[in-house]
């Protein structure tokens, strides 16, 4: 019936709108500047200007930006994994006084918007002498209340019998955690890692505020600076956008099913 045809038409239009800016970005990144400004509608370049990419990398130190971003993002991801696993396990399996109170306070920090701690954190970073250092980019993000919560839920989902059996075999908490709990919680830990990596990779406001020197600039800040300094060279700007988008898209296609969960987590956090 026409209902079905209409549905596909509608969905197709939605898909086209979703994907068009990316196709256009790719096309523009391969056009000569004259063509890009005069004929923006054409989706196939007259002559494919592959050297645009080399020109972009020459125009701004993207290699440095990427080094800074990846160093930061990988360090943050590893740290978040460590803190979420350890704190999540403590809340799930250990008994200690004020456990419920501590957990409630922890959950409350999830609701603190980043804007409100921006200024105090900036002041703290400068007082610590961390302005323009990797420590400023990494340390404040080394723990996430939401990730601790996710890890705790995953550890709570492991039946208590596993732990009892391990204990009878003389296995302590740390060995149980490393050998049994962490492998069993793997899907959740992947989501936590993706979530931490993407958050760090995409961050703009914080790196913008705590770094000034070009040598400490991360990719997202570098890209906005490039848009101001070289924005008129539309084709190169689109090359830069492609370069920045590719790593996340690669991750997206590799780990798609975890992405939905991680994004819902990101949405939850606002």
């Amino acid at each position: 019936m026409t209902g079905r045809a209409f549905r596909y038409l509608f969905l197709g239009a939605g898909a086209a709108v979703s994907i068009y800016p990316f196709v256009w970005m790719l096309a523009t990144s391969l056009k000569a500047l004259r063509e890009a400004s005069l004929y923006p509608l054409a989706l196939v370049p007259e002559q494919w200007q592959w050297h645009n990419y080399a020109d972009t990398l020459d125009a701004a130190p993207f290699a440095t930006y990427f080094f800074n971003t990846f160093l930061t993002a990988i360090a943050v991801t590893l740290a978040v994994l460590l803190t979420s696993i350890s704190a999540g396990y403590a809340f799930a399996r250990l008994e200690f006084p004020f456990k419920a109170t501590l957990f409630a306070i922890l959950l409350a920090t999830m609701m603190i918007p980043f804007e409100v701690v921006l200024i105090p954190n900036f002041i703290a970073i400068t007082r610590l002498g961390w302005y323009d250092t990797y420590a400023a980019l990494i340390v404040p993000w080394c723990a996430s209340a939401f990730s601790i919560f996710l890890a705790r839920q995953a550890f709570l989902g492991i039946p208590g019998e596993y732990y009892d059996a391990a204990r009878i075999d003389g296995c302590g908490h740390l060995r149980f955690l490393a050998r049994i709990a962490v492998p069993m919680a793997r899907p959740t830990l992947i989501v936590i890692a993706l979530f931490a990596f993407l958050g760090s990779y995409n961050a703009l406001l914080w790196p913008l505020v705590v770094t000034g020197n070009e040598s400490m600039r991360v990719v997202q800040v570098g890209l906005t600076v490039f848009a101001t300094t070289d924005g008129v060279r539309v084709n190169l700007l689109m090359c830069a956008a492609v370069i920045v988008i590719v790593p996340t898209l690669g991750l997206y296609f590799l780990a798609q099913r975890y992405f939905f969960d991680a994004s819902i987590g990101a949405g939850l956090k606002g």
Partner: protein
Amino acid sequence: MTRRTRDIPLAAALLFPSLAVLGGFALYPMVYAIVLGLYRYPRGGTPEFAGARNYLDLIQDPAFTDSVLVTGYYAVGTIVPSMALSFVLADALFRVKRLRSLLRTVFFLPYVTAVVASALIWRTLFEPTSGVVNALLDWAGIEGQAWLLEPRGVLNLLTNGWVDPSIGPSLALCCVIVFEIWRTTGFMTVLMLSGLASIPREYEEAARIDGAGGWRVARHVTLPLLSPVLFFIGIVSLIGSLQAFSSIYALTGGGSGPLNSTRTLTVFIFANFYEYQKIGYGSAAATLLCAGIALLTFVQWRLTRRRVHYS
């Protein structure tokens, strides 16, 4: 040792790193921000206690009240259309058999892309002289616009100058809104799709057998059943849009936009702190934003418990 105390040393060791980071970079600065908001920081001078003066100045400062208004336009302008669109998309997606997962992947692309990069694509699309949007209008014989550089209100432009240009959202703000709708609709569609998959089908079938048409089924059966999901998406999006920064900053090259017409609360806080070094004033505004978000979270918590229940 008893069971309650035996674990203490291990628990302390496991919890210490997380508590140090979250305490030091979230809880403590939260309290510190409230304190900062009570002080004035004259450039080069010593801080002086100002009490509620920052707050009293804020509510009389047109720059602040305008930014609240801009935030309101932005939030409503992005959430309502993208929720409506995503419901229709999810409903259609739910009924098709083939291509569903491919379409889902495509719809999700704008949301997973680094937001600064996708904002720069749109900034180039809206570019007045070499952008796609004006080229399309030109092709159709319509006069181009300045889009992201246009501070005049859309109502002014649509009514040919009859409405005052300062009334309503500016065209630049509408471009920011269009971008945000493009970015978030796919994400919402995926959320709604999982919501649709979780509601029972029998009610819809019963309504259809009773002769209800597509729209009436959607209006009286599907939407009410989906209301917890809709409510969740709405409030999470609202909290998210109160905190939007990266996209606005990248789209307008600094966030404030033409005649400050895209300056949301977040951009206002950022500008006061980063550009004008008004630490106390910015912190007071940030505290108000935080209070607003806390209130919304509380409302969400109360309403999810009480109103949105159909089981």
